[in-house]
């Protein structure tokens, strides 16, 4: 029994990461009907920004020991900044010029951006992993036989915090409402005085901020940043977004946790070699029986 609780925690940890990344896919899909395949790379770039920030503190100050909360906050902040700047650039350079091109074009452009960013970091790091300084306090909370390390709690907590923040942003702010309006009907939103281009950029910014921040927290958790680290989480998060219903914010969150838990349980039941198979089977099943996902909406018929 303890093991199942432990697995549930494992699933929630990873699921939270998937969910935070999935939100970026879903938001951008909402406004552009486009899959930003470079989104996983924003997560990766965030993790690098975080590791370099913490390494900088490590090399030049003693703040990592004296005031880790400050350096960790700074790292997360840098992760957000870097991811956001890159997202704005990629929207401007790689996607906006293709706004009216056939659907495949921005998709291919996105794959290109993804490969580019990955290779820039491979080059820069000489394919080595950058190791996060040990800033987070070691130790764990034990409840019976279940043990949850502080860093894991931190990751779970941060991912929830990020999601709640995003949810409030989308639901309650002017920009969030504009994003939802553009997602539903771009032209009508423009007639309401919404600057659609700007809103699309802000959508990228919101998704990127989330990915960058999550990248830093995840990097601290696994202890390193690597050029290839965004690839698999990116694919998984995309799967989560589709499972939950791409375009749906609550759907992305649900899909993320669903996938994380399914992976954890499958690992125990059948071995880790089957977890991706289970995920793919789920994906195929969802695509066949409910192509709009758990919480997604059927696309409206509209002329």
């Amino acid at each position, binding site marked *: 029994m303890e093991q199942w609780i432990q697995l549930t925690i494992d699933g929630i940890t990873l699921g939270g990461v998937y969910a935070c990344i999935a939100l970026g896919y879903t938001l951008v899909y909402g406004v552009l009907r486009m899959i930003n395949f470079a989104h996983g790379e924003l997560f990766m770039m965030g993790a690098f920004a975080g590791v370099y920030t913490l390494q900088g503190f490590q090399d030049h100050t003693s703040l990592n020991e004296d005031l880790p909360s400050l350096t960790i906050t700074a790292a997360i902040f840098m992760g957000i900044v870097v991811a956001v700047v890159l997202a704005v650039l990629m929207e401007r350079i790689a996607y906006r010029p293709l706004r009216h091109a056939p659907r495949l074009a921005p998709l291919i452009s996105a794959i290109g951006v993804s490969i580019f960013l990955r290779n820039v970091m491979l080059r820069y790091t000489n394919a080595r992993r950058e190791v996060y300084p040990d800033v987070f306090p070691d130790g764990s909370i034990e409840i019976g036989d279940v043990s949850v390390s502080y860093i894991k709690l931190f990751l779970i907590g941060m991912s929830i915090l990020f999601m709640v*923040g995003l949810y*409030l*942003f989308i639901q*309650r*702010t*002017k*920009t969030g*409402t*504009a994003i*939802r*309006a553009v997602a*539903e*009907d771009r*032209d*009508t*939103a*423009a*007639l*309401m*005085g*919404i*600057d*659609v281009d700007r809103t699309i950029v802000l959508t990228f910014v919101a998704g990127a901020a989330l990915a960058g921040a999550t990248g830093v927290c995840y990097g601290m958790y696994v202890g390193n940043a690597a050029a290839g680290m965004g690839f698999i989480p990116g694919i998984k998060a995309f799967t989560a977004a589709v499972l939950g219903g791409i375009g749906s914010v609550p759907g992305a969150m649900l899909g993320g946790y669903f996938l994380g838990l399914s992976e954890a349980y499958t690992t125990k039941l059948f071995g880790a070699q089957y977890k991706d198979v289970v995920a793919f089977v789920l994906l195929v099943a969802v695509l066949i029986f409910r192509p709009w996902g758990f919480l997604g*909406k059927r696309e*409206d018929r*509209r*002329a």
Partner: protein
Amino acid sequence: MAPILSVRDVSRRFQGLTALNGVSLDVEESSIVGVIGPNGAGKTTLFNLLTGFYKPTSGEIWFRGSRVDGLPLHRIAAAGISRTFQNIRLFSNMTAIENVLVGQHLHLQTNIATAVLGLPATTNAEQHAVEVAVAHLRFAGLGGRENELARNLAYGEQRRLEIARAIALRPKLILLDEPTAGMNPGESDAMIGLIRRLRDELGVTVILIEHQMRVVMGVCEYITVLDHGEVIAMGTPTEVQNDQRVIEAYLGTGHLKSGAAE
């Protein structure tokens, strides 16, 4: 007094088809103007040009002293033109009040950080915005329907929600594309009342496209008649009704004389 809107020799072609051909039209501030004409005459195209959906192939559109053709949609909206649609285009997955809040976009001031953190500054501004939105809904006769999803509203309510959303922009000119389409006479009368109040209470200039002659004759002060993309008549309802070309254009359609709903 200079007209609030001035359409100058505007044409619009789609591939081979000329949807509008050399249309000129002046609209006085605070008037209610009707645009009529048979199906395919180019009425909706005119609205699409006025709101920036399409750019004119030639000609100019002036609004409140500045040229608006060629501006992006949101800039034209900000200049003070808003509209409703022949085929209703609400944000159907949002609630009624959210639709109106989107319409208020240009007049909202919220700061991302304070909103996410729920700080008082935002809460006040937000509360104010909500109050204004509720007032707009009441104006359109949708009091009490605030939290209903737009797609769950009745057809007539959806039409009125489009108007509530349109006035949330605080426009100077509002374009109504067949606001009574599909309504029974009772609903149409209520709509006529609402249109009058737009002008009388809010001071908005109104241009409406309408098929029901009862509505057109009852509410419009001036009428422009389009046929095959050209203006064939202009004037007061009575003048237009007796215009020979108008009668010919409508011959056989029955609309003009009988005033029956489509």
